[in-house]
């Protein structure tokens, strides 16, 4: 590499930031990493260049020239280098190396996972939009999945598959897109089990007195696209009102409630990317200062405003979740361009509303959907390339912080732990994987990332064991009272995330890890359960051999495990199953339905343990093709039947997609015979579609011929590769 002047510098002292300790060693500079090896060669510290936020030469002292490197992972390293010339060479090399100019220079294109069982294709097709839409039970009577944006002609920064009201015509969509900033028209973000939705978009080009009949009609259609009485819908403008008003002068702005029917408009005051950038910088300055008193520290944290902003983001999300989950109302969310604050609040609201998004799979799929597919500008915001510093902002970090705040408040509600958040955060910045490169789905397609780089999801799937929280109660999550997490409104509940922002200052953290112990306990339970099972097996063999009669309860389908006799057998039945089985159908019509449809693999109380066991990581990732992806889809099919069959009545602008290779279809067919035996179900069709007052229509449950046409082909989705 032309930038590397001195590939090796010896006699370097690495100074600890919070004590007077230091480590002696050697610095190596490679094309991709800065490596520190201590004198005893015990420990190597690798810093990928893309993690370097800034390099600073401190004033020269007697002992040498200090070089301070601040990383995007919040690590701060200070090296004392004997020769000033070496220090300067390192400094200028790192300046260049940490700010690549072309996307092709990024680490992802040269990364080679040596020593890891990771293939290049792995993970790219894990979380497809299509799967997520199916997870939500789409299409429904009111909502369809549209391919109108297949060539990114409707909106460049949206994915190819978008979900819009089933009655929306292409003309309406085009009209609305034309009236929205960056053509980001309102599209479905989340469909709740009660039929209320979260819709996301960008600000309208309202200016001082512009309007769009199509946009008004489209928003009204969204408002009416749910069952229940004709009632108002919220529009949540996540910006402070002043910012929204200022935007009007530039021909943008906000919806005029006189023109949009039955809307309640709320400005919820989340500050813009520049405020957030400054806020985090101030917080990090405070974190770095090891001389702070408690008072000065608390004051600095307050002055940074970071906790206030995080609290605000959570509260806006709570407002949305409350409207959807409690008030049964739809919410349309936007900020300016609808890719920063909108992404934060929509995804946080989904986490609060639906336990699925609190599982590992669900959470990563949510990041993939709300952040990657819907065009959060990762390359700009995270500063992957040398570019406009005013475009850089820790919006994604703030989202991860907010998720952590929720995890802290509800420790048993999340399947994943802090480690997952760290890895997600660090690798969004590292550019080691192609996943977070580019600013939108189209960008990623242009650079052929799925064939040229590795996927972070594939890499993370190998590490599931280190991501699972032993405290997670899978079954509890689906109890009605636990489904919706509405965090307290009190600002007292938002805390400074020491483990993130002071992550590398080991001395500041608790010296003992409770979760590690809980995990050991969990493993102990699993081991004992195993021992009990094998011992029981041995006993039965002996009994048989001796001609004793085996006790009745031993002859159940569970084989060796006696049913119900004690809660201890939970783990054995499921130990070898992958965690995807834990998925519970999103919208079971009733618990009876679930049980009759679900393969009898799992008794509900076994689920919690199934998550923890995750014994076979490799199998999980290989299983995680679309087929399993909706282990839930199997279960869910009865709901799908209903929605598909009704969908066909109204849907006309979508070509049916038949694909014999479609794994989902095959899977569903396998369980079809079961479906056909089901009794007919009554569903309610509201008047606007059925053309009269509420009346019941009988629809056969087994509309399988219809479904096969309508199941969406995962390969349609641009980002996701076709199933192998």
């Amino acid at each position, binding site marked *: 590499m032309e930038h590397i002047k001195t590939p090796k510098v010896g006699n370097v002292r690495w100074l600890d930031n919070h004590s007077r300790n230091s480590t002696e060693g050697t610095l190596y500079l490679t094309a991709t990493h800065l490596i520190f090896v201590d004198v005893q060669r015990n420990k190597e510290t690798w810093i990928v260049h893309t993690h370097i936020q800034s390099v600073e030469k401190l004033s020269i002292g007697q002992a040498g020239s200090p070089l301070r490197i601040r990383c995007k992972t919040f690590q701060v390293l200070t090296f004392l280098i004997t020769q000033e010339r070496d220090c300067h060479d390192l400094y200028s090399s790192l300046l260049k190396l940490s700010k690549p100019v072309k996307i092709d220079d990024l680490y992802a294109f040269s990364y080679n996972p040596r020593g890891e069982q990771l293939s290049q294709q792995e993970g790219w097709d894990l979380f497809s939009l299509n799967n997520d839409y199916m997870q939500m039970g789409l299409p429904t009577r009111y909502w369809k999945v549209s391919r109108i944006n297949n060539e990114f002609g409707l909106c460049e920064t949206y994915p190819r598959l978008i979900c819009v009201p089933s009655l929306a015509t292409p003309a309406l969509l085009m009209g609305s897109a034309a009236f929205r900033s960056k053509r980001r028209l309102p599209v479905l973000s989340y469909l709740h089990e009660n039929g209320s939705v979260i819709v996301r978009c960008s600000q309208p080009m309202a200016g001082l007195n512009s309007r769009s009949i199509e946009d008004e009609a489209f928003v009204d259609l969204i408002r009416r696209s749910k069952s229940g009485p004709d009632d108002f819908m919220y529009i949540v403008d996540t910006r402070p009102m002043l910012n929204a008003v200022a935007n009007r002068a530039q021909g943008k702005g906000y919806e005029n409630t006189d023109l949009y029917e039955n809307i309640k408009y709320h400005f919820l005051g989340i500050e813009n990317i520049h405020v957030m950038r400054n806020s985090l910088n101030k917080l990090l300055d405070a974190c770095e200062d090891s001389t702070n008193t408690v008072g000065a520290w608390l004051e600095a944290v307050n002055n940074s405003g970071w906790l206030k902003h995080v609290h*605000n983001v959570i509260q806006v999300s709570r407002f949305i979740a409350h409207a959807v989950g409690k008030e049964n109302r739809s919410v349309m969310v936007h900020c300016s361009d609808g890719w920063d604050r909108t992404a934060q609040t929509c995804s946080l609201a989904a986490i609060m509303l639906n336990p699925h998004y609190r599982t590992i799979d669900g959470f990563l799929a949510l990041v993939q959907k709300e952040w990657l597919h819907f065009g959060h500008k990762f390359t700009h915001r995270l500063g992957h390339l040398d570019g406009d510093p005013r475009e850089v902002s820790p919006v994604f970090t703030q989202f991860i912080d907010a998720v952590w705040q929720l995890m802290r408040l509800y420790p048993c509600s999340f399947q994943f732990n802090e480690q997952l958040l760290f890895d997600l955060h660090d690798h969004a910045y590292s550019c080691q994987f192609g996943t977070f490169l580019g600013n939108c789905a189209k960008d990623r397609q242009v650079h052929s990332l799925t064939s040229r780089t590795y996927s972070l999801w594939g890499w993370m799937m190998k590490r599931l064991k280190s991501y699972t929280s032993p405290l997670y109660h899978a079954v509890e999550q689906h109890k009605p009272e636990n489904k919706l997490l509405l965090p*307290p409104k009190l600002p007292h509940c938002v805390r400074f995330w020491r483990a993130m922002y002071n992550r590398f200052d080991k001395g500041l953290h608790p010296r*003992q890890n*409770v979760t590690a112990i809980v995990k050991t306990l969990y493993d102990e*339970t699993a081991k004992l359960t195993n021992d*009990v099972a094998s011992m029981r097996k041995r*006993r039965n063999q002996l009994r048989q051999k001796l001609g004793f009669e085996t006790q009745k309860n031993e002859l159940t389908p569970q084989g060796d495990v006696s049913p119900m006799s004690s809660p201890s057998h939970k783990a054995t039945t499921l130990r070898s199953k992958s965690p995807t089985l834990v998925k519970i159908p999103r919208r079971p019509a009733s618990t009876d339905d679930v049980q009759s449809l679900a393969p009898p693999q799992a008794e509900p109380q076994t689920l919690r343990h199934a998550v923890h066991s995750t014994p076979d990581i490799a199998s999980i990732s290989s299983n995680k093709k679309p087929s399993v992806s909706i282990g839930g889809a199997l279960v869910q099919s009865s709901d799908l039947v209903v929605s598909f069959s009704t969908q066909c009545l109204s849907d006309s602008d979508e070509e049916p997609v038949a694909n014999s290779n479609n794994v989902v279809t095959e899977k569903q067919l396998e369980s079809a015979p079961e479906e056909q035996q089901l009794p007919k179900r009554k569903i309610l069709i509201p008047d606007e579609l059925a053309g009269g007052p509420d009346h019941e229509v009988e629809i056969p449950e087994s509309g399988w011929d219809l479904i096969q046409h309508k199941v969406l082909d995962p390969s349609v989705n641009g980002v996701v590769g076709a199933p192998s």
Partner: protein
Amino acid sequence: MEFSEHILTPKIEETRLEGPDISPVFGTTCLTGHHLIFYSHNKENKEYWILHRNVDSVEKRYSLDKNVLVLKCKDFKHYFLSIVKQEEANNVCNSIEILSNQTKSSYQYPFFFRPKFSIPEDGYDLFSVEKEFQSVSSKSDQWRLSNINITFDVCTSYPSQIIVPASITDQEIRKSAKFRHGGRFPVISYLHQNGRAIMRCGQPLTGNNNKRCKEDERLVNCVLGSNHRGYILDTRTLQSAQQARAKGGGFESEYNYPQWRKVHNSLQKCAVQQESFVRIVEACLDQSSSSEKWQSKLESSSWLSHVRDVLAAACLAAQCIDREGASLLVHGSDGMDSTLQVTSLAQVILDPDCRTIRGFLSLIDKEWIQAGHPFMDRCFHSVFSNQRIRSEGPSFTIFLDCVFQLLMQFPCSFEFSVQLLCELQNHAYASQFGTFLFNNEMERRNHKLRTKTISLWSYLLSEEALPTLINPVYQSKEGVIWPSVAPQSMHFWDALFLPKLDTSTTIRAFVNETLSEIGQLQNELLDLKQEVGNLEKLAADADGVNDVEE
């Protein structure tokens, strides 16, 4: 009973009660000598008992249609009692105000309380100076047990029996006591396994004339033993120590105590800490504040600063003992507050025994109750009282918060959970038990506390309470624990101040569940193993028979 004269309206119908753990309910309110009892008129007919002593202040919120009394309790809970007639509301208010401020010792509730739980062991026997002496003399033979204070004439705030250096006579001790504030001559607080000792006392009465006392010097020096090095930790700034001389107090001059190095580690006075205590609770109860306001109140209350300072001072003390191998003498001015915070916390840091439940309760007995921390004065009022603060101060609360900090940083080193700390805090301020009654051993003796009241320890160690106080992830006794005192490492004590936001109970319940599951599995495995063993024997026998037949 004399209480009746204060109870003007003993029973009121049609009242309404609401509280943090009670959704609004109608019922009848009754007043007794020690309780406000509310009989709810809903299906469950639940009774709510509020101890008068727990009520810190009563606020009248009268409007045209209802008269609400806000009972602000010492556990920071607020109860809202609505009464139809204003006159009755006034009567209740007056009665509670008088009964909750009852100072007459024999009227205190613990003298009337009879427990419903069985007492397997008397908590008053958990700690005794004899046991402590045994433990000390197992490590060193330089100590003896003295009855010098048997009539409490040497020091009113010390216990009757005291462990003193064997080489010092009672006569010398009397002289030393006269030279120390409140008669609190240097006594041993803790003997570390390396032979170094922590001593504590009141300030020396040097005054402006730099008075000295040979006996005191001898007493202090004889703990140094062979290594001749020691630190005196003064919990005041040098300046305030110097100012104290004008009032007859002072500090040890290096000239007269040449083997000792003096360290000033300033901790705030009771009144300052009390102010801080009031403000932090107020900040926590303010439901309407914005994020900025809350953070600024948290900062300006200085509560976490006090906690951190005490913890840092205790670390310094522990460092002298364990790292420097030096003995330590701790005092402030009267040696009853910050001194005890430092010496007791240092022991929690140094001695794994103090991190067990029994060890911790014994430590509180030894370093707080027997050592004469004036609980009655310090905890007479909590944070809501309108009355002028006289001698109130949260010394004990800050100590508990420091233990909480240690517990957060070393969650597996403590046998008890944060629940125990909350219980101790609440019982120190209002209790049916006698443990925290009165200011010192002398008062407790005079009122025959041991025979007439029940010890809180009896309750905490009973089968009823103990399981809820155990930390399920307690691992083992390890040696010294060194906490971080960086501001980032300070935790806010949610379980006490913001119980609604506390998640530690959820986690504890989860671990307990898993543990009981493991227990069941282990039993089952044992049974199975036995059965398989028997069967194998049978099978072997059968095989043997078969072999013969073949």
